[in-house]
Every structure is written in C-alpha cells, then in structure tokens.
C-alpha cells in the first residue's frame, strides 16, 4: 500500500486538515489503496522512512530533507493543498510519485 505522510508543527490542526483534503481528492479521483497520515515535527524523523510521499506544511529542515533523499521519498509542498489555493501542481506531484511507485 502507498503511504503519504503530512507533517506540521503540532500534528493536530493543519496536518489533519490537509490529510482530509488529500483523502477527499483521492476519493474524487477514484484512487484506492493509499494511506494518508498526519504527524508532528518531533515524530517525523523516526516515521518518515516508512512513507513514500512526504507532504510538508512546515518548512522541512536539513535532517528531514536528508532522510527523504536517502530513502527516495517524494517531497511535496502541501501549503497549496492546505489553503486550497491553486493546489493542482502539488496534487500532480503526489500522483506522479504514486505512479512511479507502481512501476517499481
């Protein structure tokens, strides 16, 4: 199963709201078998390696960027999704990452 992680500062508000939007988008586009989770920045370094796509709504630091790079995790700007302002580019990047996974 493909796994997407959304991380904000506290993991309680903006990340959960963004997870809601991504789930709605996936349902509307009939995409199944994708798990979308929210977390906070404290947990992120330990859980990130388990995921395929990392959606940030708090600026990723160097440690996080390095983990994503080392594990081949796609990094996507989640702010347009959270705000719901021109989110198409970010959704496309998520789609592209999910498709690339299927080929593996």
């Amino acid at each position: 199963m493909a796994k997407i992680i959304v991380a904000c500062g506290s993991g309680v508000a903006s990340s959960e709201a963004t997870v809601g939007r991504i789930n709605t988008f996936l349902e509307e586009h009939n995409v199944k078998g994708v798990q979308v989770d929210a977390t906070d920045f404290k947990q992120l370094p330990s859980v990130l390696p388990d995921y395929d796509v990392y959606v940030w709504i708090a600026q990723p630091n160097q440690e996080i960027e390095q983990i994503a790079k080392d594990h081949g995790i796609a990094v996507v700007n989640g702010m347009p999704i959270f705000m719901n302002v021109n989110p198409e580019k970010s959704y496309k990047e998520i789609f592209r990452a999910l498709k690339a996974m299927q080929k593996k």
Partner: protein
Amino acid sequence: MNYSDMLKRDLVFLDVDAKNRQDLFRQIAAKLVARGYVKDSYERALNQREDEFPTGVVFPEISVMLPHADPQNVRQAFLAVVKVQKPVHILQMGYNTPEDAEAMFFLGITDSSQQVGLLQLFTDLLQNKQFVADFRRIDDPEAMYELVFNRINQ
C-alpha cells in the same frame, strides 16, 4: 461535530490595538484565561509554537493568522475571532516568509480528529470574496458572531 459550537459570543474582538505579535498573544491569552477557555500555560505554548512553526496564511483576498497551541493547554474547544487596528508583522506557515496579518482566528483544539474540519471550512471561507468583504466591513462583535456563525453552520 457542529463547528458553530466552537464559536463563542464572548470571543469576538474586533478592535485590538497590538504593538506586535507577542503583545497580541498577551492580550488574547489574558482574555481566554479569564473566561476559562485555556490554562495559564497557553500564552507561553502559543508563542513557542509560533516561533517554531509560524501560522500566517496569505490568501488572495486576505492575510490572516491561525494561532494554536497544543491541546494540553486548552480547557474547552473554541474559535476566537480577532481583527487588529494595524496589521501585525508575522511569518507565513510553511514558507517562513514575512506577512502583515489583519485578522486572526485563534483555534482552541482539544480533539484534533473532531475539530480540524473547522480549519478546512475556514480556509475555504477566507477565499470567498463576499465573506471577506463582510468580514472587513463589520465592526460590531454581535454582527460578526452572526456572520461567522451563519457561514459555518451551513
């Protein structure tokens, strides 16, 4: 959950004179503590969270801020609606770039799974031209309560 329950008649402040972000947080935190919505730890937690992870959001129609602290600092879920006399200089969520915010929606979250829908609803509302025009025009707290209540109750 009916999100309009989080909106409180005693938490609409439309003429706040704040020197800066810290001053704004001090004033709003004092009101929230006095009314029993948050614990004494709230102001510190709010500042700490904002320093680490800013909550400013620039929508095409309006620049706002969505300050929130971790649930353990909150006694009762709430949404406080704030307008400031002069924009407050803050940073944007995600990008950490500067912003001058003219309105703040303080979110008191106790149970994230129940209450984050409100955040989705709000991000959509803040892109609604008519809502933003009404929001800017209204300076009476009771009228503002009615405006927001009717929008989130739909």
